[in-house]
């Protein structure tokens, strides 16, 4: 099963490498990963999506908690949560395709953020499966030139917070 694990950790040099190293060392899988400082510059928030059975995910959260730089760990998928990912996608946009891409983009509530005579760059925000659906809807004929995805970020619904 897919899990979204959020980690609050010290914003120290080497902290990220400890997390990433842990995953490779213990043979855990990383689907996506993102990290950035929080409003408190001494802390970073890291979100990792991983696939594994309950036993593996239990080990992942325990092992993450053991890292000295890690302040808190939460498996967001255990409760109600919101996940978002940002994608920028550069497409060949000529002739009829220009209107077609624009239409698809509107349906997915994406924005065209850069335009040249031959290309569109589309920005799309949503859960990962929505981004996958957008790519699928373009079909094989679409000229995808480049895809950039941020990896998943997540936050719990309601009043629950991950902070110190």
């Amino acid at each position, binding site marked *: 099963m897919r899990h979204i694990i959020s980690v609050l950790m010290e914003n120290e040099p080497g902290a990220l490498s400890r997390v990433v190293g842990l995953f490779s060392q213990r043979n855990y899988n990383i689907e996506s990963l993102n990290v950035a400082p929080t409003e408190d510059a001494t802390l970073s928030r890291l979100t990792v999506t991983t696939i594994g059975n309950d036993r593996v995910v239990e*080990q992942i959260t325990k092992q993450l908690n053991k890292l000295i730089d890690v302040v808190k760990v939460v498996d967001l998928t255990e409760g109600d949560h919101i996940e978002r990912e940002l994608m920028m996608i550069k497409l060949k946009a000529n002739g009829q395709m220009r209107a077609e891409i624009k239409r698809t983009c509107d349906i997915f509530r994406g924005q065209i953020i850069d335009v040249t005579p031959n290309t569109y760059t589309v920005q799309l925000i949503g859960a990962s499966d929505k981004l996958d659906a957008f790519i699928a809807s373009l079909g094989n004929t679409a000229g995808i030139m480049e895809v950039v995805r941020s990896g998943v970020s997540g936050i719990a619904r309601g009043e629950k917070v991950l902070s110190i």
Partner: protein
Amino acid sequence: MVVRALRDEGVKYIYGYPGGALLHVYDALFQQEDVQHILVRHEQAATHMADAYARATGKAGVALVTSGPGATNAITGIATAFTDSIPMVVITGQVMSHLIGEDAFQETDMLGISRPVVKHNFSIQRPEDIPATIKKAFYIAQSGRPGPVVVDIPKDMTTPTDRFPYEYPKSVKLRSYNPISRGHSGQIRKAVDMLLQARRPVIYTGGGIVIGGASDELTELARLLNFPVTNTLMGLGGYPGTDRQFLGMLGMHGSYEANMAMHHADLILAVGARFDDRVTNACDKFCPTARIIHVDIDPASISKTIRADVPIVGPSKVVLEEMVGLVKESVKKPDAQATDSWWKQIDEWRGRHGGHYRTDDSELMKPQQVIEMLSKVTNGDAYVCSDVGQHQMFAAQYYKFNKPNRWINSGGLGTMGFGFPAAMGVKLNFPDADVACVTGEGSIQMNIQELSTCKQYDLPVKILCLNNQSLGMVRQWQDMNYESRHSQSYMKSLPDFVKLVEAYGHVGIKVDKYSDLEAAMREAFALKDRLVFMDIAVDPFEHVYPMQVPRGSMRDMWLSKTERT
């Protein structure tokens, strides 16, 4: 500031080897007398000495090594301590900070290389951070589940002409690290209820009892309940080895009675042990009728390989203390009839095998006889520092450890070359104690250069080299699984060890016959102020038994070359 911080931490000895990146630190060492430096001949030995000090005392040992090759040579020792949860602080020199990343001379990314084998590591970015960082290193190394901590110090952080205010903190607090100080009372109560209802209980304990200083509490609990106790390789000495309730070691080379009792148990109380693959054999066949209470300070060790019915996270000493209190208070008592019939069954198993080995099929001395003699000559009271291989298993099986912290071996990582420097580290800190290194002709040659260090610092350890002219454990597996194709497991051109140690200024004794063994060993231990190397010829064809059958259950064992359960 480095040396001053070590002094203020109360460090008496550090083990190390100088080099370019550490010259400022070594100059500071030269100008004081509080912290004594022991110069080894290879950095690996420095880490093992520090490690063994920690195993014998519970306090973190300190190693000091230079950048680049010094640091990489220390890695094996750091990994050894990490796998066995041993507290240690390793200070590594680093090239000047402006050179980091430029492939400078003797530069290596020590933070990156050590990361998977340390509890934590630090890089000093500002000289004024040195005292607080060293304090943190000791705190992290010694608290919670202990482990090694590396502090990497670029050379320009120790420039003696730069002056900074110095203050060594009395204590530290980290918001991201709060080791647990006691177990969950409700869970402990539940566990005690289960213990009092058990009919076929076994207490299975590991290194967490030894390093957690909980052997008195364990002994008290076991005696109150009259339950059998088995120890892991790391846990030996945690419960008195000559006690009637002790079943010996369990696992791959565990005793017949310990493995049989585990397999048939209805309740297992595991404390400070981690259900390692060398203990459990096949996880899906492990102890099919047992419910499991697992006490460990590290939550990640619980339900990692074997699911616990009652998990208790906490220090072994505190949790066992609480259990003892509850058992004493309780009006309910263990079912004496059930316990009696369980003991009857166990004693029957004990009678069936009970650590027998054959002495009649060859003229050659058996390695088991050497260990039994060592146990006899030292009254079971020596520090026994072992290397890795058959001799290690024989020592674990046949030396009767009645006290904790006396059995010092690389259990988890299985580091050949560990035993001799470990013995040196113990002898230095316990000069009046008998310290034996049990080794083989393979392991000893992995750190034999330390004979020179022993000469320099007068470290009269006793080395018992069980010489079977082959890498015995490798050979045993080849005999059992590879139709005796002894690929690279024998040693041609062994040195004359007696002459070799004499060249280093020590005493060598060669023993070929069992009838000479006792006198020779007594002579060796009587030479209080000399290092004695006993080169003891033992049967090269001997195997370690019992040995669990691969992918079987706890009870599936070979008991000799021809007999299995």
